[in-house]
């Protein structure tokens, strides 16, 4: 039954007109991860590759296409974990990094910490030679539209993102 890779693109509400892009996005990401496994690569390489592809796909709430905070800015979180050693690395509130999951892996591989946040994470990224990207390059029209819509005082961002409890 090995190797195997499974990916998700979030459990929030997806409008009908965006569903096809979400489905094709997770399928191409899983293919990329599986190609690494079929080539004898590690599970860590596979999950980082698959998640990087989804971060680069503006259809998903990660990397480019992230939802915006109340100020209309992007702040991203990511984690990786290695089942062999229970090694783990994470970043939070990073702003101008295209692939936070790759920075999270560097935290695991290059530091003895579990998580770096905000400006400290950015300084670490620069020290690791991870390129910074313009903040605007991560913001899509769709995320800007959802941000504006949820600025209204009576908006319920959790319900808007996750859907009703049912």
């Amino acid at each position: 039954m090995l190797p195997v890779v499974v990916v998700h693109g979030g459990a929030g509400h997806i409008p009908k007109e965006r569903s096809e892009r979400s489905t094709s996005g997770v399928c191409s990401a899983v293919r990329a991860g599986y190609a690494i496994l079929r080539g004898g690569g590690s599970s860590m390489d596979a999950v980082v590759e698959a998640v990087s592809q989804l971060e680069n796909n503006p259809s998903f709430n990660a990397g480019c296409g992230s939802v915006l905070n109340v100020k209309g800015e992007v702040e991203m979180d990511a984690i990786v974990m290695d089942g062999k050693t229970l090694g783990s690395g994470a970043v939070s509130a990073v702003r101008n990094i295209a692939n936070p999951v790759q920075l999270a892996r560097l935290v695991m591989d290059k530091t003895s910490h579990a998580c770096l946040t905000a400006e400290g994470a950015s300084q670490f990224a620069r020290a690791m030679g991870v390129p910074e990207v313009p903040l605007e390059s991560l913001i899509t029209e769709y995320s800007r539209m959802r941000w504006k819509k949820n600025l209204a005082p009576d908006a319920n961002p959790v319900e808007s993102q996750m859907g009703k409890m049912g």
Partner: protein
Amino acid sequence: TVGAVAVDSEGNIACATSTGGMLNKMEGRVGDTPCIGSGGYADNQTGAVSTTGHGETIMKVTLARLILFHMEQGQSVEAASDLGLAYMKTRVGGLGGVVTVDPQGNWAARFSSLQMAWAAAQKDTLHYGLYTGEHFTQSI
């Protein structure tokens, strides 16, 4: 949020999760994703989980680790995932989804919200779905 879990040919397990967070969140708000045991967890002895959903409720129940706890108690990947999601819904009123795998390569993609885009690749077959109950396959 996006995430992945994998078991390679040597049996090593890993997980990864990444997110832009919650819509219109306060500046500086950190959700479940970077928290070990909430946004993800991986252990060669038990399996791996990557989670998505309402972060504050995922953290309150440490959803990823909770699901692996159920697997340690003998539940299947599917049953353990459903138990974890059901507990999060009833105990703290949260919706979410997970992808889960065990060391033998059994896997599950489960969610308590109305949809979750997911895909899996195993034995050169691609599995995928979006709405509850969907499970499409094709050659990879």
